[in-house]
C-alpha cells in the first residue's frame, strides 16, 4: 500500500465515516465534520472527496432509495473498506509520531 497517506480533509472525512458507522451518508458526514471540527464543509467538496476516496479503494458506497421517514430523499451510504481502515490507522499513526514531543513555543500566536 504505497498511496495510503491521506490528505487532511480526506482524513477528516474518513474519520467521520468511521465514527458514524452504518449511518454515514452525505448530510451526516458533513454535519459530523462541521460540528466536531468546527470547520465549514461544502457539499460539493465533500462529494468530490468521497469520489476520490472511492477511486482509491478506501470507501465503498451503497445507494439507498428513499426509506420511510426520509420524505422521499435518496441517500448514498459510505462504508470503509479494509484498505480504508488501514489508511486511517496508517495516517493517524504517522501523525502521532510526528507530533510526539513537539512543543510549540507560543501556542497563542497563530501566525
Amino acid at each position, binding site marked *: 500500500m504505497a498511496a495510503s497517506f491521506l490528505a487532511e480533509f480526506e482524513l477528516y472525512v474518513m474519520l467521520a465515516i468511521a465514527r458514524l458507522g452504518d449511518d454515514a451518508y452525505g448530510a451526516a458526514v458533513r454535519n459530523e465534520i462541521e460540528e466536531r471540527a468546527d470547520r465549514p464543509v461544502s457539499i*460539493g467538496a465533500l462529494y468530490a472527496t468521497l469520489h476520490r476516496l472511492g477511486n482509491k479503494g478506501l470507501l465503498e458506497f451503497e445507494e439507498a432509495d428513499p426509506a420511510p421517514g426520509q420524505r422521499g430523499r435518496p441517500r448514498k451510504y459510505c462504508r470503509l473498506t479494509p484498505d480504508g481502515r488501514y489508511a486511517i490507522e496508517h495516517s493517524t499513526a504517522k501523525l502521532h509520531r510526528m507530533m510526539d514531543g513537539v512543543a510549540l513555543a507560543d501556542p497563542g500566536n497563530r501566525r
Partner: protein
Amino acid sequence: MREHRVPRLSRWLLSITLHVADRRFALADLDEEFERRARRAPADARRWYRGQVARSLIPNMKNRLARVPRTVFGDLVGDIRFALRTLASTPVVGFVTIVSLAVGIAAATSVFTAANAFLMRPVSTSISAPDELVSIYTTAEGGERFGLTSFPDYVDLREQVDAFADTAAVRMGVLQLQSTDNPRRITAEIVTGNYFDMLGIVPPIGRAFAPDESVFGSAERVAVISHHLWQSEFEARPDVVGETITLDGTPFVVIGVAPADLTSRLLALKIAVWVPLGIPGGTYHSNAEELSTRADREHTVVGRLRIGVTAAQAQSQLDVLSARLQQEHGEAWQDERAQPLALALVPASEGTLPPDWLTALAGFSSIVMFAAGLVLLVACFNVAGLFLARAGKRSREMAVRLALGASRRRLVTMLLTESLLLGVLAGVLGVFLSTQAMGWMDSVTLPIGDLSMDFDFSLDRRVLGFGFLLSIATSVVFGLAPALEGSKPSLLPALQGAVTRPSGKRRRLSLRNLLVVGQIAMALVFVVGAGVTLASFDELLEADWGINPERIAMLSRKLPEEITRDATVPYYRDLVERFEALPNVEAAHLATGAEAGAATIDTTAELYVDGYERAEGESLTVPLNSVTPGYMEMLDIQLLRGRTIGPDDVEGAARVAVVTESFAQRFWGDRSPIGEQFGITSLYQMGNPKPMTGVYYEIIGVVADGGYQGFEGGGRMYFWTALYQHPGPRVLMLLKGSQSAEAMVEVLRGEMDPTDFEVAIVTPRTFEDLISFQFGFLVFMGKILAGAGMFGLALATMGIYGTVSFTVNRRTKELAIRQAIGALPGQIVRDVLREGLVLTTWGLVLGLGVVLPLAALLRSEIEGVSPVEPLSTILGAAILLVVAIAAAMVPARRALRLSPVTALRQD
C-alpha cells in the same frame, strides 16, 4: 406542504454543476439539512443554503473534470482545470467578468426570445409534420398586403382545391368569461371542427372537436379550454370533461383541455378557449349571415399539403381559384382601389405571421437587437480590458511557459480556454436572467376591452442555442485579443520581472489604446442614442393633436334594443342632459369616435365632390366623427371659418359638416368652402353594417388641421357631422369634469354595462390615457432602448476608467524615475493628460462619425425620430472627457507622490 422553499436559483446552479452520479444524493442531503435549519430560522437557512452552493461550485467543477478520462480531451481538461484554479485565485475578476457578460447576454437573449416567439415559432410543439402546414391569405395591392379570408372563400377553397389534405379556418375573438371569483374577458379562437385534427394535436385530456361540431352541424355548444384556464377555473381536475363554462352569457360544455404550449398564430399570444365556428344561434360573429358574406374577411386559413404536393403546385391551384372568384364575385374580390385580390400561400417554415407583418416586426426587432448587441459588445470590451490588464501581470508566467518550450499556439489555447469557461458560465447566468426578465414582461393588459394578453415566452431549443452561441462568441471577442497579446511577452525582460514594456518606443496604436478609443466611441453612441430616443418619445407624447383632451373621460355605450329608430335622438338627448346635470360635470357629449387615436374610429366615408376628377387609384376614404352640439368646443378645436355643429342641426334640416383645412384645400383650393357640398358614396358606420349612400353634406365650417386621425393615420383630411342628424346604435359617452378626468372616470363607472360584450371601451378611461395607449408599445420599446443606452453608458464609463487608469498605473515606475531625474511634476502630468486627451478625442470623433450618419438614417427611415440633441451630446462627450482625465490623473498623481525608490521596487 411547502413550508420553507429552498432558494431556487441556488438549487438549480448546484444541480447543474454537480456530477450526475452524485446529483440526487447531494441535493437530498442539502434539502434534509435545510429543512432542519429552516424550522429554526428560515432566513438563516436560506443564507446557509446559498453559502453551501457558492462554496460548492468550484469543487463541483473540478470534480466533474477529474472524472473525465484524461486521454479523451488531453490538454483541454488540463486547461480547464488550470482555468478553474486561476478563477478561484482571482475571484473578483471572475465575478465582474461573469456578471457583466451575463447582463449583456441576458439583454440579447431576451430580445431573441421575443423575436423567436413572435416570428418563428409554430403554434405548438405537438403539431404533427409541421413542414406540411401552410397559411393561406387573401392578398391585396399585388400581393403586398396579406389579409384574412372570408368564410365563403374558405368553403370554395376547401371544395375546389385538391392540393390540400385538409384545411381549417380560424379567427380570433374575445369572449366574456363568467366566473364567480374572477369574471373577465379572455382570448378565444373560433375554429372549424377539424382545426385540431388538421394540426394533428390530440388534447391530453378529453377530446378535440369533431368535424361536424362546427358550421351548424351539431346542436351542442362545446369548448376546448387551455391548460391555463383548466388550472385557474377547474383547479386542474382531471374529470373536467362534461363541466360547463359560461362564455358571453351562454353555457358551453368542456370537452377537452388543449396542450399547454398551444398558442395563437399571432405573436405567441396565449389563447384561453377554443369554440367551434358557426354553432347554432351563433357565437361571436359566426352566425349564418356573417359566415355567408363574401366581403367579410375575418378568417385565417391553415392547410396541410397533400403528401407529394409542393407549395408551388398548391399556389398554382390557388391562382386558378382566385381568377374564378374574381370573375364570379367582382366587387367582393377587389380592394379599396378596385384592384383584384388573390389567394397566396405561405409555408409554415416562414412563420405563422403574415409576411408583411413579419417584415415590419423584423425591422423593429433588429433595432432593439442592435442596442442589446451594443451593450454586450461594451461588456466584452470591458472584460477584454480586464484580461489585458491581467495578461500584463501574467507576462512572467507566460514567459516561463514559453521558455520551457510551450508553443505560442498552446498558450493562446490555454488563455482562450479561460475566457471560454467564463463565457459559458456567463451564458448560463445570462439565459437564466433573461427567463426571469421575460417572466415579468409576458403579460399586457389592454385598456381597450380590458383584455389581458399573455404571451408564451418559454425557452425553447432555439433560444438555448442562441444563448450558447452567444457565450462562445463573446468569449472569443473578449478573449482572443488579450490571449494573443498576453502570449507574446519579450522573454528576457519579462523573466526578469519587468512589467512595463522595455523599449522606449511605445506603439501609437497599442491594443489598449484601441480599446479606449472604441469604448469612448461606443459610450458616445449610447449617449446620443438614448438622447434621440427619449426626445423622440417626448415629442410623440406631446404632439399637437389639435385638441385639448384635459379633464375628459369616456366610455362606450350601446343603444338599448327596445329603443326604436325614432326614439333614438330623444334617448340620446336625455342621456346628455342627465349627465350635464351631475355635479362637477362641465360638459357631456356623445360621439362616434374620439380624435387623436383615443378610440378607433370605425366610421369612414368614401367622398364624392361634383367637378372633382379623382386621379387613378386615388383614395378618397376619409374618417369622420358624428358628434353632439358643443363637442368641438369641449375639445377646443380651432375654428377658422364658419361655425361648428350646433343645436339646430337636427333630423330634417340640411345635413351639415365641419371639415379640416386640408379637406377644404383639396377640393376648393383657396376659395371659401362654406356652403359647398360633398357627397358620400358609401358610409361605413360603427355598428351599422349597411352602407349609407347618396347623401350630401353642406360645409358649415372649417377648422385647423390637427392630428385628429391619431398616430397611425397619415392623412389630414377629417370631418365632423351632427350625430342628431343620423344617430347610430353605438356611441362614446364623453364627460368633461370641472376638476379632473379621474373624477369623470368615477362617474362613468356607474354606467358600465356588464352584459354588453361588444363595446370598445369597457371600463371608463381618460382621454389622455387612451391617446398615449396607442404608443404603449412604442413607449415601452423606447424605455427599453433608453435603458439599454444608460446601462451601456455606465458599463462603457467603467471600462474607460478601468483601462485608462490601468495604462497610467503601469507607468508608475517610469513616471517616478522621470521625476527622480529632474522632470517637473507639471510636465509629467501634462504628458499623461495629453495621451489621455488624444485617445478621448479619437474616440469622440469616431463615435460621432458613427452615430451622426446613423441618426440621420433612422430619421429618414422612421417618422417621428428627433434630430440629434446637441446639448445631451455635448454633455455626454464632456462626461466622457472628465472620466478619461480623472482616470489618467488619479494614478499619475499617486505615482508622483511615491518616492522613486518605492516606485522602482513595485512591479
